[in-house]
């Protein structure tokens, strides 16, 4: 693939009162890559993602999503991107299938196409068993799977996954990894996680955020080399504790 960028972040900054949550970060993510953001609690990962989705107004700076500015082309950005929030979020009284259908429809697909896409997601995420259950009756892990399926159903060009495997059991996590791996190359993915093996397993590139700043950026090998450690966890700790 030629060197096109799925996401270009330019001096993005977010302040909450006197607190600087994201401190002038700049980086480019190539189209089709899977980019992981690591960082301790409160490092600014969610805030960064929210700004990229138009859910939070940057204090300064800009970002381009497939060339569309989050400041001036937000409607376009919203159409081509989707995300699964850190907190699982589904419509509680709608069934699994209705949730999926609803999301396909608000992203502009007609009824027939929406049904097809819902069917496809139900298969991909093995939701057959629960497709007629109301979302609120599902266990946390199943709700999260649905939540991610709802993010994928709009076939986004850029996908944000904020701690997608939080609360999933080992098997479900591995299964989700397989789903995510299959998406690699088809869309640009930004993922945040607290599981180092997840980042190791999935990422093309990794950023480590500390206090709203990006302290390390590169491939897994580059980050290990940078810190002189032989696994990501040690590398992460040495950067985060610096």
């Amino acid at each position: 693939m030629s060197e096109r960028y799925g996401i270009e972040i330019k001096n993005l900054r977010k302040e909450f009162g006197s607190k600087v949550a994201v401190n002038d970060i700049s980086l480019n993510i190539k189209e089709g890559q899977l980019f992981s953001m690591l960082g301790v609690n409160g490092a600014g990962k969610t805030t960064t993602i929210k700004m990229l989705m138009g859910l939070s107004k940057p204090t300064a700076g800009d970002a381009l999503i497939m060339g569309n500015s989050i400041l001036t082309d937000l409607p376009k950005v919203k159409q081509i991107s989707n995300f699964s929030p850190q907190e699982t979020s589904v419509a509680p009284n709608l069934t699994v299938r209705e949730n999926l259908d609803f999301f396909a429809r608000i992203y502009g697909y007609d009824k027939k196409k929406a049904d097809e896409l819902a069917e496809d997601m139900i298969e991909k995420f093995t939701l057959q068993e629960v497709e007629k259950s109301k979302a609120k009756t599902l266990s946390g892990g199943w709700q999260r799977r649905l939540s991610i399926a709802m993010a994928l159903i709009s076939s986004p060009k850029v996908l944000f996954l904020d701690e997608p495997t939080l609360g999933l059991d080992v098997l479900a996590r591995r299964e989700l990894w397989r789903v995510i791996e299959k998406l690699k190359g088809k869309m640009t993915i930004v993922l945040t996680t607290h599981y180092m093996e997840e980042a190791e397993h999935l990422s093309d590139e990794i950023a480590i955020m500390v206090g709203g700043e990006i302290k390390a950026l590169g491939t897994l090998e580059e980050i290990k080399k940078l810190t002189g450690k032989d696994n990501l966890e040690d590398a992460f700790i040495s950067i985060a504790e610096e």
Partner: protein
Amino acid sequence: MRSIEFSKRTTREILRDPLSYIFCLGFPIIMLIIMTVVDRSIPKEAQMNIFKIHALAPGMAVFGLTFVMLFTCIQLSKDRTTAFLTRLYASPMRSVDFIIGYTLPSVVLALIQVMITYICSFIIAAIVGGDLKLFNMLFSVVCLLPSVLLYIGFGLLFGALLNDKAAPGVCSIVITLSCMIGGIWMDVDGMGGGIKSLSHCLPFYHGVQAVRMAVSGDMRRVTKPLIITLLYATVIYILAVVLMRGKMKKDVR
């Protein structure tokens, strides 16, 4: 079409809550029956007319709207506490889609409720005697529309401003105001004094009055309360829409 899709999901959320049936559909029927029984035990000399079916049915129709307000309000305030709404903010939904998506289901709910209330009223009138004219009843539904807008406006207003803990409490103030000085369960004009003036300053009394006049076929006395209610409704609804949009902008900080 996003607004229609969102309306559908709101309707489903409301209809799949069993409380909706109890309050919006069961409650009016039971109240109609109870009040009719009460009316039978009031001596004729008391000259109490508000429980006679031609006054009771319109009162009940407006009373039902107060529950539509409650449900609109709870739905919106509950949604606002969830990450689900945040997620919809990140979708191509525009604020007009949200506004329509919260208004339309409530309008439909209100109309269904009025239908049920009126059908029941006809049955009661047939049993205990009372004269309800079909044309007047149909016309009174039109006269009820400003009140529909008014109560949905209040629901959206409180739903946008308050959290889901505080919202029902504030709604119950409006419900009480409507019932008492709105003249649904109380003969305000017979009371006079401060209460009467107060009730004439607020929209609730006029809303009930417009429907009552229509039902009793007193068409010339419909216009004034109808216009007053409509003015109030327009102001409240616009205020609610402005506040909702403001809240959405603020949520995106």
